């Protein structure tokens, strides 16, 4: 039995569907989650290990966090956290069965974008 000829549902991004906020935010929620899994969570773990290891290890990690790359990673982490937070709240609201009409879904999508950018700026502005 050949499986390659079966009709497949095309991937949500790409030439088959019009680009729209629903699919863009869906993949962004995943991307920010994967980014935090691979970068942010291990970095927090390193911070805790460094703090428990002593002043030298802590100073080395602090120096790296203060570098240009460290600052970029922190900024990306703060944005990922903010967006995944608002994206997650949207999902929890949908799971409760609320706000599932298309105009509401688009509106909550824009709210998530604006909210996560604002929260990122506030947190980064507060010194993180």
């Amino acid at each position: 039995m050949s499986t390659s000829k079966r009709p497949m549902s095309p991937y949500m991004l790409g030439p088959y569907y019009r680009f729209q906020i629903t699919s863009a935010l869906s993949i962004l929620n995943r991307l920010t989650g994967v980014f935090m899994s691979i970068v942010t969570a291990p970095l927090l773990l390193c911070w805790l290990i460094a703090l428990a290891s002593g002043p030298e290890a802590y100073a080395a990690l602090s120096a790296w966090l203060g570098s240009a790359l460290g600052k970029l990673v922190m900024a990306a982490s703060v944005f990922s956290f903010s967006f995944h937070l608002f994206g997650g709240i949207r999902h929890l609201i949908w799971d409760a069965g609320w706000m599932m009409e298309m105009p509401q879904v688009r509106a909550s999508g824009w709210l998530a974008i604006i909210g996560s950018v604002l929260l990122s700026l506030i947190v980064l502005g507060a010194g993180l």
Partner: protein
Amino acid sequence: MQNPLARVRGTGSSGGGSHHWRSQRYSALILLLLTTWVLWMGVALAGADYTTARAAMSSPLNAGMAILLAGAVFYHTQLGLQVVIEDYVHIAALEFLLLIFVRFACLVAFLISAMAALKLVMGA
């Protein structure tokens, strides 16, 4: 929240029911509740020197919150990465290895976090 009907009908080709889905939502809710603490600590300890950071993490409340956070974070991470791997990795052997690796890595990460937090609170 599990309907008794699910036990009668069986749960289909996945071999499991709604456990993964519910676990992901419960851990998300715990993380949502911890958000305020995470932001508070993050802003308070950003760029802090060793003595300040050490003093903050020596408090039993903060150490307990850190262990709770690590548990929720790495559980949610494992559940989330599992779905991404199941969706996008189509080579069966690689998928299996990645799923095992993610589970193992998240468990180890949680254990190390808990030990580091305990070490800090006990002042060793």
